């Protein structure tokens, strides 16, 4: 983990109510500078509400948040100075402006004190061939990549991504992951929410699982839900039928099997639970 100890985001006892409904129910979380943190959770768990409070779009009902050592609800000149260091990619935008990709990115670059190079950003999000195309004529995935371009144009220290790769094809998703890894390499802190477990696993230094407004665990993808110690499943072919057993000591079991077969075990598989299995179990238990 390429993190240092300085926090980029500090959340303590965060509560958000909409009338009677509690959307966020006491969250504590610290995200460190330079890390990619992924917030996972089912729809309605409070992901977007949490992100939008961090982005300064919503007021909190209780608790405290600091983002880059600043209160995101601050308005006026101080708020705009802070926004200069923040990149935001909202969940979905459907505005179909009659501006080309090039014109849009160029326009937004003027808002920032220290913008990235416009052409470089267009290259990075893979929209070079669409640079002259009007935003309204882009496909859903291309549209999303334009959103990402507008999120990173200001060279943010901290980038928020709310379900960034929804609607991407697998190739575009890989390219997007490479881009995020590159940004992390340059020192950008990234806070993302996602539905995709493989995305969290490929990108995140740490993941937090949120359900019903509460964070139920924060861990690295490899250790989430005690994944490292979860029982493995072994399957093999014996007497013309697939056999299966679950064990927390797969190596010992394999030794026994190997002795029994006197060598090769037919169609052997050792299966560790993937992040998705762990995640589904976790949110299942907390429903």
């Amino acid at each position, binding site marked *: 983990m390429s993190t240092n100890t300085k926090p980029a985001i500090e959340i303590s006892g965060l509560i958000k109510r909409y009338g009677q409904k509690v959307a966020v129910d006491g969250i504590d979380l610290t995200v460190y500078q330079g890390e990619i943190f992924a917030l996972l959770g089912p729809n309605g768990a409070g992901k977007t509400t949490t992100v939008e409070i961090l*982005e*300064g*779009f919503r007021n909190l009902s209780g608790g405290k948040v600091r983002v880059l050592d600043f209160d995101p609800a601050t308005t006026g000149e101080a708020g*705009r*100075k802070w*926004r*200069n260091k*923040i990149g*935001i990619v*909202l969940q*979905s*935008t*459907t*505005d*179909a*402006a*009659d*501006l080309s990709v090039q*014109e849009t990115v160029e*326009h*937004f670059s*003027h*808002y*920032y*004190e220290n913008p990235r190079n416009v052409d470089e950003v267009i290259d990075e999000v893979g929209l070079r061939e669409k640079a002259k195309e*009007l935003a309204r004529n882009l496909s859903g995935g291309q549209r999303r990549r334009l959103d990402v371009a*507008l999120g990173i144009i*200001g060279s943010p220290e901290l980038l928020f991504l709310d379900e960034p790769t929804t609607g991407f094809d697998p190739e575009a998703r890989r390219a997007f992951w490479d881009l995020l890894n590159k940004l992390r390499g340059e020192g950008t802190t990234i806070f993302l929410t996602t539905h995709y477990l493989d995305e969290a696993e490929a990108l995140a230094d740490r993941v937090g699982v949120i359900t019903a407004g509460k964070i139920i665990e924060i861990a690295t993808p490899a250790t989430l839900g005690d994944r490292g110690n979860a029982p493995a499943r072994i399957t093999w072919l014996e007497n013309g039928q697939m056999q299966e057993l679950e064990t927390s000591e797969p190596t010992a079991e394999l030794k026994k099997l190997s002795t029994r077969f006197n060598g090769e075990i037919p169609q052997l598989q050792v299966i560790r639970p993937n992040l998705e299995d762990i995640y589904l179990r976790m949110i299942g238990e907390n429903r």
Partner: protein
Amino acid sequence: MKTLKLGLLRGRMEVKVFMRGRESVVFTLLFPVILLFIFGSVFQNTIAPGVTFSQYFVAGMIASGLVNTGFQQLAITIPMEREFGTLKRLRGRPISVSAYFIGKAYLVTILMILQTALLLGFGAAFFGLDIPTTSGKWITFTWLILLGSACSTVLGIAFSVVPKSGRGASAIVSPIVIILQFFSGVFFVFSELPIWMQQFAALFPLKWLTQGMRSVFLPESFATQEVAGNWELGRTAIILTLWLIIGLILSIKTFKWSEE
């Protein structure tokens, strides 16, 4: 300083986007010219010595143009920008809401200049509109345009919180504008309207703008045909200023970035 710079940058961008939208160009810029053509062709009658109805109508359409390019255009497009997330996207950036307003004002100014030039040119070429020759009339024309478009812009921004959705905005805003046009003496001679209609119209800026524009484009002798027997320019200035202040306060107090 930065706000002004970003506001003008936004303004130029807004003009570019506007000109690329075929519907908006036709609906906002060309529609008044088309109306002028229809009404001017149908009503060729003389309403006072030396004053044809089409001359009367051009003065009203120039005043209406201020309502179209400011109030109507903004009260329809801002709710759409709110619904489609344009405003929310803007809010997350180091730009002040004033820069957004300046951009809108810039757009309205450009549109208003284009529309007024179109109507003046068209009216002079085809409907016997007399372009004023005295500097006094041009001064009146200039302050009417400035005050009228400022008023129209802030009221458009203020009214943009009324439509519940972007898609439905046009259905709420357009009828209001059309009714005001009927009541304010754009389509009919104002002094011939029922008294209650005149009194209702006198509450809103458009009636005063049309009357002011008549003082610019119609002969001085026509003043006696007005309801008050004169052009009432002083009162016009006061009422427009009042509406400007009301609109400014409302737009600052009620403006919201998103629908929730």
